[in-house]
């Protein structure tokens, strides 16, 4: 395990080294063919985004009456945006705020709890540690979707359904994050520094905060990012837990609009509002994704080791 970890940390160096030596495809023909295949695939991956961008500049008539992949008619993006934020009494803005609230609270909370537990599993000796960690490994593969229904029933007995806690509390649990941070803490937090801090008279919480946390920072950012995005994107859990429109996150809210628009029971069709709503919902994710690429990829490769 530790071999692969060190191997991975040299990956980026290997990449830049290869770029520097300028290793190219072996034949010009092969190089052109490779680029053609990549261009074709890139077009496929980007097509829906292009469509969304174009469609968000059209009104409802333009959406249904003009060529889907090119601009046409008046530029309606700003009209659509203002309809989006005023439709249904401005409920979209509430959904946006809810999504942000759920993902920030769950992300920060889950990361903090996973950091404490992961560090303890890696570096502290306490009775029952191995047993508890084995239980965690045993439960890590329980599929989340199978738990949604019983969690809902338990929460409703506790009177917590249709509150923000119904979404936040289950999202705080991240067994894989604990596992990942345990692995990372095991390799990256030096025992001598822990020991030195203890000899200096620091309490265990202080040792954790001043020695362990800084050493675990890259993995913490990865776990934070993944939990936040997972909560932002989550659909099944809030769909089941919430029935109050005002508590919906974006995913559930947009689905209700889409459902009533396609089934045609919402009065005037609001497809253009849904389109621009989808655009506004993914812009923060794409910006975060582009800015924080390094951490995404780091998380994926660590995840692949599971």
């Amino acid at each position: 395990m530790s071999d692969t970890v060190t191997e991975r940390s040299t990956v980026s160096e290997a990449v830049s080294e290869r770029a520097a030596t300028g290793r190219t495809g072996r034949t010009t023909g092969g190089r052109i063919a490779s680029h053609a295949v990549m261009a074709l695939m890139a077009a496929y991956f980007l097509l829906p985004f292009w469509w969304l961008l174009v469609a968000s500049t059209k009104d409802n008539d333009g959406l249904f009456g003009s060529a889907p992949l090119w601009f046409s008619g008046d530029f309606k993006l700003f009209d659509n945006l203002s309809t989006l934020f005023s439709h249904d009494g401005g409920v979209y803005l509430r959904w946006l705020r809810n999504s942000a609230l759920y993902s920030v609270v769950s992300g920060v909370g889950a990361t903090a709890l996973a950091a404490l537990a992961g560090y303890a599993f890696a570096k502290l000796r306490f009775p029952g540690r191995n047993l508890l960690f084995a239980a965690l490994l045993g439960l890590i593969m329980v599929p989340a979707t199978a738990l949604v229904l019983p969690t809902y029933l338990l929460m409703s007995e506790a009177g917590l359904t249709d509150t923000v806690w119904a979404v936040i509390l289950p999202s705080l649990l991240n067994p894989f994050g604990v596992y990942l941070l345990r692995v990372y803490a095991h390799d990256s937090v030096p025992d001598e520094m822990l020991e030195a801090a203890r000899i200096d008279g620091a309490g265990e919480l202080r040792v954790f905060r001043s020695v362990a946390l800084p050493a675990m920072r890259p993995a913490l950012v990865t776990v934070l990012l993944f939990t936040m995005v997972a909560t932002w994107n989550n659909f099944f859990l809030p769909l089941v837990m919430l029935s109050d429109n005002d508590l919906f996150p974006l995913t559930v809210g947009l689905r209700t609009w889409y459902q009533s628009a396609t089934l045609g029971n919402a009065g005037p069709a609001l497809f253009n509002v849904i389109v621009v709503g989808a655009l506004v919902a993914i812009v923060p994710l794409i910006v975060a994704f582009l800015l924080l690429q390094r951490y995404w990829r780091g998380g994926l490769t660590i995840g692949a080791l599971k």
Partner: protein
Amino acid sequence: MSVVARRPRVGRQAVAGWLFVAPFTVLLVFFLLLPMLYAAKLSLYRSTLVEGEVFAWLDNYRQALDDPEFRRGVLRVVVFGLVQTPVMIGIALVAALLVDEVTSRFSRLFRLAAFVPYAVPVVIGTLMWGFLYSPNTGPLSSVTDVDFLSSGTVLYSLGNIVTWQWAGYNMIVLYAALQGVPREVYESARIDGAGAVQTALRIKTPMISAAIVLVTIFTIIGTLQFFTEPLILQPLNPGAVTNSYTPNVYAYHQAFSYQQYNYSAAISFLLGAVVFVGSYIFLFATRRRSALR
């Protein structure tokens, strides 16, 4: 002296250790262990009008296994997995081999483009494709007469959505595995006269077989739990995407459209157990394999 001095410190560590893992353990109990046991219990009971909740042994499971709708749903996700998984992993593998072989500005851009769909919520990815499939709002109707949302084609359309969303993610995982292979292996192949395509197929692909198996398993696990995409597309053609389209969709509708909580719990539990046991068998098998290498 050191023994005497260390003893209280170990005691302090034990207390700290327990305090550190306590919040997580509480969550694990309340939001994983307890719901799991509760689902198991529910699945063994039946609610009747006369007697209320009665213990019904495995009746719910028997009903599920005999239920043609449930069986069709299971068959559907299995067939879906068998077709969609190899297609997507194939695309991901080709893409990973390409970005591993070709170093250019464009290949770096391509890596980004392939990965962006993964950053989009499944709900919104499915919404976008729903618009693209629709003959009224999508570009596809000008190219072909195929109805992408009919009962015969919608499974393929769903497969395309999943492929679009996850191929780039799998590409990155496979690409990372390729980067972990020592470069000398390829150099010696080149000296032996192997071309780029030959190297890719005969050397690189076998070298990362463990990673390929792993992404395949994760894909199958996801497929068995197929839920969001069919639920979102359902209003576009409720006749094709039925309330029992996949086991999870079925469990959801049993609970929230028909209030059949016990039956729904049995379906969830059955599905969860299959996924759970299956993942451990596969993980164990692959671990053995990588240890043997």
